[in-house]
């Protein structure tokens, strides 16, 4: 029973973080059909903001809010620098510019801050442990679950009820038609990037909460996780991204519990081979998105 509860908490907390990561990637992909390689660097931006404001003596929540805000701004900057100038041209061009922008941000961190890890302030509660029904678990796991639940609820309300959300879903289904009906394309795309930045910012706080430090390459792992989760769940579907995140967490945790130590280090190779297989079997992922229209 305790093992099961332990397993459940692990899956839910890891899955919550993974789902948020995947959602941030898929919201941009859904509308633009373009993979944002700079997504991981948004997480890095939030992390370094935490490091830079750590000496200011502000309360932690204010610092966290500043960090999330910076991630949102970086997300919008991605749109302006990497996507807007080449959006109407080839798919390959945009993939390359977003890859270039990711390298740019990462090396800017190397150049202006440091290649070495930098400590990030964390509130007390992140390092405490809680006991639930005989299972001792770090409190940050429960915080992650709570944050994921709140954000996912907020996000689904936004997408279902608000004008912005409806416009975004319309743009994702048929971009040209949505534009003809008077939805401002640039505004919708920038908002998608802003939401992507918001999710990246929150993920960053949760992710760095596990490690306690930030390095220039920190964005790679979340980016890979978001890739796998969206590919499993369905590149075009928001529910699919969430499902994919939890499924991936389930697979990872199961492998962690069952694989022998000397195979465990190949875990990434296993999961990525799984991605390739799933893409071959169902190129659309587990949940199909809306019928695809023409990209701008």
């Amino acid at each position, binding site marked *: 029973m305790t093992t099961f509860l332990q397993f459940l908490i692990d899956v839910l907390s890891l899955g919550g973080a993974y789902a948020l990561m995947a959602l941030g990637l898929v919201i941009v*992909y859904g509308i633009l*059909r*373009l*993979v944002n390689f700079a997504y991981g660097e948004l997480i890095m931006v939030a992390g370094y903001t935490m490091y830079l404001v750590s000496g200011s003596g502000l309360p932690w929540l204010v610092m966290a809010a500043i960090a999330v805000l910076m991630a949102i701004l970086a997300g919008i900057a991605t749109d302006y*620098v*990497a996507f807007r*100038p*080449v959006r109407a*041209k*080839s*798919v*390959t*061009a945009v*993939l*390359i*510019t977003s*890859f*270039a*922008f990711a*390298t*740019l941000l*990462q*090396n*800017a*961190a*190397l*150049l202006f801050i*440091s*290649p070495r890890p930098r400590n990030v302030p964390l509130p007390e509660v992140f390092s405490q442990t809680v006991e639930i029904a005989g299972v001792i678990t770090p409190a940050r796991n429960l915080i992650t679950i709570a944050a994921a639940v709140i954000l996912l609820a907020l996000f689904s309300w936004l997408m279902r009820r608000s004008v912005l959300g409806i416009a975004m879903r319309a743009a994702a289904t048929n971009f040209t038609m949505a534009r003809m009906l008077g939805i401002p394309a640039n505004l919708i795309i920038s908002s998608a990037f802003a939401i992507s930045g918001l999710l990246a910012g929150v993920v960053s706080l949760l992710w760095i909460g596990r490690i306690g430090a930030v390095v220039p390459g920190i964005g*790679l792992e979340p980016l*890979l996780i978001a*890739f*796998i989760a969206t*590919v499993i769940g369905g*590149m075009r579907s928001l529910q699919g991204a969430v499902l994919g995140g939890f499924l991936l967490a389930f697979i990872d945790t199961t492998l962690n519990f069952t694989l022998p130590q000397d195979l465990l*280090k*190949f875990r*990434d*190779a296993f999961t*990525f*081979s799984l*991605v*390739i297989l799933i*893409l*071959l079997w169902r*190129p659309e992922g587990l949940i199909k998105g809306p019928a695809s229209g023409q990209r701008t």
Partner: protein
Amino acid sequence: MGKNLLTIALLCGLIVAMVVVTKLLGVRLFDRIAINLCIALVLVLGLQVFMGNSGILSFAHIGFMGVGAYTSALLTIPSRMKGMSLPDLDPFFAAIELSPYLGILIGGLAAALVAAAVSYPLMRLSDAAAVITSFALLVVLHTVMTHWSAVTNGPRTLFGLPRATDLWLAAGAAIVAVVAAVAFKESRTGLLLRSSRDDEVASGAMGVHIPRLRWQAFILSALFAGIGGALWGHFITSFSPKAFFLKETFVILSMLVIGGANTVTGAVFGAFIVTAAFESLRATEAGLNKLDIFSEQVVGLTEIVLALAMIAVLALRPGGLFATQEIGVLLTRRRNKREDSP
């Protein structure tokens, strides 16, 4: 046909001129840069063979470079060195000690073989799905290289490769790569593949077997990458899996994108331009570090400038410097125009 020969002659002439100038100057540093440039040419032309003709972005290329480098290392490191650098190696491989030249060839073939085995099903995918799977393939190859300690010495540096790559060998390989890339582009396979790049549906409807053509290009591309990787291994003589990951991918990709992915000329010029920019920026970085103005080492400046250049090129000239026409075609056309005009 004459135009293609002119293209080959001009591009090879450029490489030969570069070699001659380097040899005349006789500076050790330039020698090193020239060898690196030739190896980069092999890699970029390999990527061009696949990406330029099929129009699909591939991230896996540098992974195959790693396969070539490690295969050649495995076959050529002297047996007594293997005892130190790879203590857990299978005794069969530990006894093998081939000539580095043979090792380079086998390294290329091994990369092509791995590519042939894993990539066929991936070739059915286009656009974003193809890019993500190629990225996944790069991560898989990197993970295997980092953790297969018995063969690759894990994440640590593998040392002891005999030094075999000199400027002549590297330049020869680059020239062969130019000829092969042009020949492939103008071959039946290359022509059909380019038709699928320009209109996938139309060429499919006319009976072009797109996955098989892409597969052939991908194998050829991996062969180039494997040979390039092995050449690099025998030049640098010690390396770790880190050398075959995103940083190197970014440099090779920037060469191709800035030059123009669709033409062999673009790949060659891109390699020259980016190498020149890269080395001068490196020198600036080193100079700044020597001056000691900043409290920390200056790193990453090179990549920042390259990234900005890439974004600028793609925004202003999405096809790169040589977007559609090879240099031979451009020159003959200009001459014809001049003859027509008076």
